[in-house]
C-alpha cells in the first residue's frame, strides 16, 4: 500500500514557502473572501489537479478556509513533497508523490477520483477524461469542471462536439485575466529562466528557436529576445506565423531552424512537435526544452542512433546523436518551468488562481442549472480579478464619461 505523500515531516518548510507566496496574491485573497462570505462552497467537495507548488497550495488553502473539503492530485514531475506535506497538515487530502513511477501516479489519480469530487479544477482535462471513461461511476457526483490550460480546453471542446461531455465546464484558460498574463508573461518568463538556470547559460547572442507562436510561444519569444537572443519562430498556422513576422521574428520551417539554433523551446501543447529526426539536424551542444504540455511534445524515440545519456547536471540530460555529437534535454521533456523551476511566478498565479476560485464559486451557485458544455467564465470574473491586482499596485484607472458612454453605445452617425 503506497502512502499518498512522501514526507509528512517536511510540512514546516512547505508552509513557509506557501506563506511567502500568499502575501503576494491579493486577487486570490479577495476571491476567497467573496467565496467565504457567500458560503457557496461550505461543506462541498473540491478536487484540484494542478502542479503542486506554493501558489496552488494557497488556492487549496483558500478554498478550504472558505468551507470546502479539498483534495489535490499532482503527478510526480509536478510535485514538491514539502508543499504536499504542508497541505496534508492542514487537513487537505493530498495524492501526490515526487518519487511516483507511472503506475503509482495512475494509482494516486484513481484514489483522488475515488475521494468523490463535486467540483473539479482540472489541468489538461486529465481527471475529467478519466471520469468520462473508465470512472463513469463518479460522474453522478461531479457537478462541474473548471479547466486551467489550453491543452485541457481543447479536448473538452472535442468531447462537447462529439456529445461525450456530460458536465458543464468553465474554460478558465480562456479568461482574459488568465491567458493574457499567465500564458504570455508567466510561462514566458519562467520557462526561459528555468532553461538558463538549469544550464548556467547566457542568451545574449544565442539563436533561440520557439516552436509554436501561441500565447505561450509569444511570451517565451519575448523573454528570450529581451535577454538578448535572436529568436526564430516555427509555426503551422499562417495567421500566427504572420503575427510572428510582424513582431520582428524570423519565421522558418523547423527542419531549417534546426541547422542553426542553439536553444529549442516547444510551446505547442501538441505531441511530437520535436522528434529524433529534428534532433539529428541540430548543432553539437544545442539545448531542448518544453514550455507547453510535456511528453510527448518532444519525443526522441524511434531512431536507434538518438540515445538518451547521463544527466550531466541536475535537470540536464545528454542526448547522443550520430557522429559523436550530443544535444541536451532539459527536465527530461517535462514542462521545464515546473520541473526544473518553481512554476509560474507568484503574481501571475495570483491572477489565474483567482479566476479558478471565482469559477468554482460560479459553478457552486449556478453549475447545477447548466447543461453539459464548455462555457466561458463570466466577464465580471476577469474584471474583478484585474481590479484587485491593480489595487495592490496602487494603480487607478479612468471611468468613461457620460458622453463617451453615449458615443460608444450609439450607431447613428451625427
Amino acid at each position: 500500500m503506497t502512502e499518498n505523500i512522501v514526507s509528512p515531516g517536511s510540512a514546516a518548510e512547505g508552509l513557509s514557502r506557501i506563506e511567502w507566496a500568499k502575501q503576494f496574491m491579493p486577487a486570490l485573497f479577495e476571491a476567497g473572501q467573496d467565496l467565504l462570505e457567500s458560503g457557496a462552497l461550505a461543506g462541498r467537495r473540491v478536487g484540484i489537479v494542478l502542479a503542486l507548488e506554493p501558489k496552488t497550495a494557497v488556492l487549496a488553502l483558500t478554498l478550504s478556509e472558505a468551507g470546502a473539503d479539498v483534495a489535490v492530485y499532482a503527478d510526480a514531475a509536478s510535485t514538491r513533497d514539502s508543499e504536499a506535506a504542508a497541505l496534508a497538515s492542514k487537513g487537505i487530502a493530498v495524492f501526490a508523490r515526487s518519487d511516483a513511477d507511472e503506475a503509482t501516479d495512475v494509482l494516486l489519480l484513481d484514489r483522488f477520483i475515488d475521494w468523490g469530487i463535486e467540483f473539479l479544477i482540472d489541468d489538461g482535462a486529465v481527471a475529467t477524461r478519466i471520469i468520462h471513461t473508465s470512472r463513469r461511476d463518479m460522474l453522478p457526483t461531479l457537478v462541474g469542471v473548471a479547466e486551467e490550460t489550453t491543452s485541457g480546453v481543447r479536448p473538452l471542446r472535442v468531447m462537447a462536439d462529439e456529445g461525450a461531455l456530460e458536465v458543464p465546464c468553465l474554460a478558465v484558460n480562456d479568461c482574459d485575466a488568465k491567458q493574457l498574463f499567465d500564458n504570455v508573461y508567466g510561462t514566458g518568463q519562467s520557462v526561459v529562466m528555468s532553461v538558463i538556470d538549469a544550464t548556467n547559460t547566457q542568451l545574449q547572442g544565442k539563436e533561440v528557436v520557439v516552436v509554436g507562436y501561441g500565447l505561450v510561444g509569444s511570451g517565451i519569444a519575448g523573454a528570450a529576445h529581451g535577454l538578448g537572443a535572436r529568436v526564430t519562430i516555427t509555426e503551422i498556422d499562417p495567421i500566427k506565423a504572420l503575427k510572428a513576422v510582424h513582431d520582428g521574428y524570423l519565421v522558418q520551417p523547423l527542419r531549417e531552424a534546426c541547422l542553426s539554433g542553439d536553444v529549442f523551446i516547444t510551446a505547442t501543447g501538441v505531441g511530437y512537435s520535436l522528434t529524433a529526426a529534428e534532433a539529428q539536424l541540430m548543432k553539437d551542444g544545442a539545448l531542448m526544452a518544453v514550455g507547453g504540455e510535456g511528453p510527448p511534445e518532444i519525443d526522441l524515440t524511434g531512431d536507434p542512433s538518438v540515445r538518451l545519456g547521463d544527466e550531466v547536471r541536475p535537470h540536464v540530460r545528454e542526448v547522443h546523436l550520430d557522429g559523436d555529437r550530443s544535444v541536451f534535454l532539459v527536465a527530461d521533456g517535462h514542462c521545464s518551468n515546473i520541473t526544473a523551476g518553481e512554476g509560474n511566478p507568484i503574481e501571475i498565479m495570483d491572477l489565474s488562481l483567482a479566476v479558478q476560485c471565482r469559477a468554482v464559486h460560479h459553478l457552486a451557485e449556478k453549475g447545477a442549472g447548466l447543461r453539459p458544455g464548455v462555457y466561458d467564465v463570466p466577464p465580471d470574473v476577469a474584471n474583478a480579478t484585474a481590479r484587485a491586482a491593480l489595487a495592490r499596485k496602487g494603480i487607478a484607472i479612468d471611468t468613461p464619461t457620460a458622453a463617451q458612454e453615449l458615443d460608444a453605445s450609439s450607431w447613428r452617425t451625427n
Partner: protein
Amino acid sequence: MSAEADRSTIADPSLAPAGRQAIAWASRNAPVLNGLLRKRLGDGSFDGVRVALVVHLEAKTAFLATVLADAGARVVVAGSNPQSTRDDVAAGLVDMGIEVHSSRGSAYEQWEKDLLSVADTKPEYIIDDGAELTLRMAKHRPALFEELRGVSEETTTGVARLHALHDAGRLPFPVMAANDAACKYMFDNRYGTGQSTVQAVLALTNFLMAGKRVAVIGYGWVGRGIANYVRALGGRAVVVEVDPIRSLDAFMEGHEVAPIADAIADADLVITATGGMRAVGSTHFGHLKPNAVLANAGHHDLEIDVAALHQESSGVRTVREGVSCFDWRGGKQINVLAAGALVNIAGGLGHPIEIMDLSFAVQGLSSHELVVGDYAPGVHVLPRRLDEEIARARLASEGVILDSLADDQFDTMQEWI
C-alpha cells in the same frame, strides 16, 4: 591522498563527483579557454610558476584553475567570498590535484585564514577578485608581498583599490586590470552580472518581473545591465546615481532617474550596484515600501547595511531559502536576499558560462602578459590586440565571419597631415 589534498582545507572531499561534473560542464562551454588560452599558455612560460587564484570559487573559476595547472602552473585556490564558494566544486578541484583553501559560509576570520594559507604558499602571481588577497598580503605578509611579480584583477572594486595602492607609492609590481579590458567589462559586468542578478532575484523570490518597479542603485556597467534586463522582462527601472554623466546616460536610455528616497518609496525591488558601501542603509530603511525586497549585485557584502537592519529590527526569519525577512522597528517587513552578499553568486549560479569564458580568457592572457612581458610597477590594461584576439576567437567559435576594410575604404586623412 595527494600532497595537494593533504594541504587543502575544504568542507567535504566526498562532494568531489558533483564538483567534477560541474567543472566538466563549464569546460564544455568554454571555447576561448580551451582554444586560444590553452594555446597561448602552452608556450612553457608557466612551468612551475606559482599562481594564486582568488575568485568566487564555483565551476567556471575551477575550470580556469585546471587550465592554468595543465599549462604547468602550481595553482592554489581560495574563494573571494565565503558566501559564494561551492563546496562540491572545491572538492572536485582537490580531487583533480589542486590545493584549495575555502569553505562555503565560513566566518570572516576563517576566510581570512584561508586567504593567508594561500599567501603562505608564496605565490609569484595572483589572479585576484576585489584585490582581497593582494591587500591582505600587503598588510599581513609584507615580505611575501614584496616578492609578488604581478597581479591580475577581476573587478571594478579591486582595480580602484589597486590604483589607490599605487597612488600611495605602495605597489612594487605590475598589475593587470583585467576588469578594464573590453572583453571583460563590456560583457561580464553588463550582460553577465545583469542577466544573472535578475535571474537570481526572480528564482529566490518566485516573482514576475513584468509590472514590477525596480530601483537600481548605481549605473555603472553592472547597473546598466540590470536596468536593461529589468525593462526587457517588463519591469520599470528607476535609476539612482551620484555621477551626472551616468545619470544622463540612464535618462537618455529611457530609464527614470530619481534621488534614492523617491526611487525606493514605491519600489518592489531595490538592487544595489555601486561597488561602494552602505548604498542602502539606516537613513533609507524608513523610505522603503512595506515588504520591499533588497538585493546586492556589487562587490561588497556591505552595500546593503544588513548589520544596521539587524540592529533596528525586532526579529528576522528565513521565509524561503535565501530570503531573510526583517521586522523593522516592529512595524514594517523588509526582505533581504542572500544575506546582502552578491545575489547572483551567493543566491544563484554566478555568471553564465559563456561570459566567464571571455572574462577568464582576459585573466589568463593578462597573467600570461605579466609572466612573459616586461611591465613596470603600476596598473596596466591588456593590450588592445590581445583583447581583439579574444573577441575574434569567440566569434570564430560561433561561426561568425567579420569583414575587413578594403584598401580604398580607409580614410584619406594621411593626405592632410
